[in-house]
């Protein structure tokens, strides 16, 4: 077994061990975005990928002096790269627990993908 296969196997095993800490996440990836200069309209299509990963809330209401209302949730996510594949982009979205988040940034180390989503 190659080292790459070994790491991929171990990453998958680690995600298996997470058990019910994982939850269902639906990633919506945008494809075929095109701009029509004649009409000014953007056309694009979306493909959904359903997988399991970990969501962690990182919202902190720092400005307690003006308002205690949390306007936008921020979460971290981490998923197995093997489950997600290659077709995702910044500003794609994902849905978890009935909330939809926009992907602000992500890091892909080749074995797992983690990032930050805002919205909800």
């Amino acid at each position, binding site marked *: 077994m190659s080292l790459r296969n070994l790491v991929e196997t171990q990453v998958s095993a680690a995600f298996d061990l997470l058990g019910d800490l994982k939850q269902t996440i639906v990633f919506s990836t*945008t*494809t*075929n*975005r*095109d*701009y*029509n*200069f*004649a009409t*000014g309209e*953007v056309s*694009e299509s979306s493909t959904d990928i359903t997988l399991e990963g970990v969501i962690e809330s990182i919202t902190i209401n720092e400005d307690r002096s003006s308002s205690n209302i949390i306007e936008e949730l921020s979460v971290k996510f981490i998923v197995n790269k093997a489950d997600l594949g290659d077709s995702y*982009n*910044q*500003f794609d979205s994902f849905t978890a627990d009935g909330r939809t988040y926009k992907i602000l940034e992500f890091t892909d180390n080749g074995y797992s993908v983690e990032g930050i989503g805002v919205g909800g």
Partner: protein
Amino acid sequence: MASYSQIIGDLENIFASSEWVSNDIQAYPSNIAPTSNRPNEYVIIEVLPAQELNIQYGDEKQVAGLIILQIYTPVNTGTRRIYEISDLLDDVLNKKVIGDSIQTSASSLDVKGNDLDDPSLFRADYVLRFSSY
């Protein structure tokens, strides 16, 4: 005065015309991220209608500004292609009355060099002043 929407609409229509499309050079407006890889050479269209002209003929108001076409070509291919693309842009933009809203002046070319965001690309800015009526 032409509305801002009319100005951008008239300008963008140029890039939907058969005269430009036949050049087979991909154009993008500002503020759009393609989901497929960009081609080896392309242009990005920017319109800066930031200059208000003097009020003339009663309430008529005119706006002027810059049209900037960012031209990208691969590095290590020389600059000739930049000039060829600029000539193609001249064919559709240089000293033209575009649609019902824009009149353009003579163009100029500002060769920038390697792109700061993507060093594999070489950038030049094709610039026109325009006035709207």
